[in-house]
């Protein structure tokens, strides 16, 4: 797997300097040109990560693991997505939720998680259409 130097940013000084590349098997809706990403841990507790485009590092998403914010979140990954990811075993997968910081609250997208196969580093944003998962689920409110 190819590795790459991380783009240094003031906030991410504690980043390791070589980060393995994650390859999106299909691009994220709205961002067709971006296929290679890095996952960068932003806080010590491992609650907040940046999913940063290596094709243009100006693009990044903030992502969180579902646990501990949504404890009963166990999405069923559709077969088409499993095929894109190379038919992983369940234990090879990690899930990250894209979050949006709004004025009053931070919300997570439960309808379209980013699923990463840790073995081959393929990923995709899985669309759980036909479920009642919200696109905006409140993660935390601002005081």
């Amino acid at each position, binding site marked *: 797997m190819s590795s790459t130097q991380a783009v240094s940013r003031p906030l991410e000084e504690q980043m390791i300097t070589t980060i393995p590349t994650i390859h999106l098997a299909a691009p994220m809706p709205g961002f067709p040109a971006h296929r290679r990403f890095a996952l960068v841990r932003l806080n010590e507790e491992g609650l907040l990560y940046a999913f940063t485009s290596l094709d243009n590092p100006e693009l990044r998403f903030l992502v969180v693991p579902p646990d501990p914010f949504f404890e009963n979140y166990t999405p069923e990954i559709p077969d088409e997505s499993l095929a894109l990811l190379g038919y992983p075993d369940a234990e090879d997968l990690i899930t990250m939720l894209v979050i949006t*910081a709004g004025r009053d609250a*931070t919300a997570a997208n439960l309808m379209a998680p980013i699923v990463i196969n840790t073995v081959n580093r393929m990923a995709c944003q899985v669309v759980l259409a036909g479920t009642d998962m919200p696109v905006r689920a409140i993660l*935390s409110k601002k005081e």
Partner: protein
Amino acid sequence: MLVLTRRAGESVMIGDDVVITVLEARGDVIRLGIQAPKDVRVHREEVYRELQAANREAASPTDEVVEELTRTLRPPEEQ
């Protein structure tokens, strides 16, 4: 927009690899079957548009926002 008329059982090809078949047409409701390569994503338009908008809204928060969340994000019971 290209407009074609099909009956149940007939199909449309898009490029070399995408085939859309009208499986059943009953009044207002049309059932479509879609064959496409696995890296071509197929979604109901309104779902796709909603996700596209959500991704765009989430994309590239400012450094201030990132810094605040890095400092303040906590598991639910600690809020």
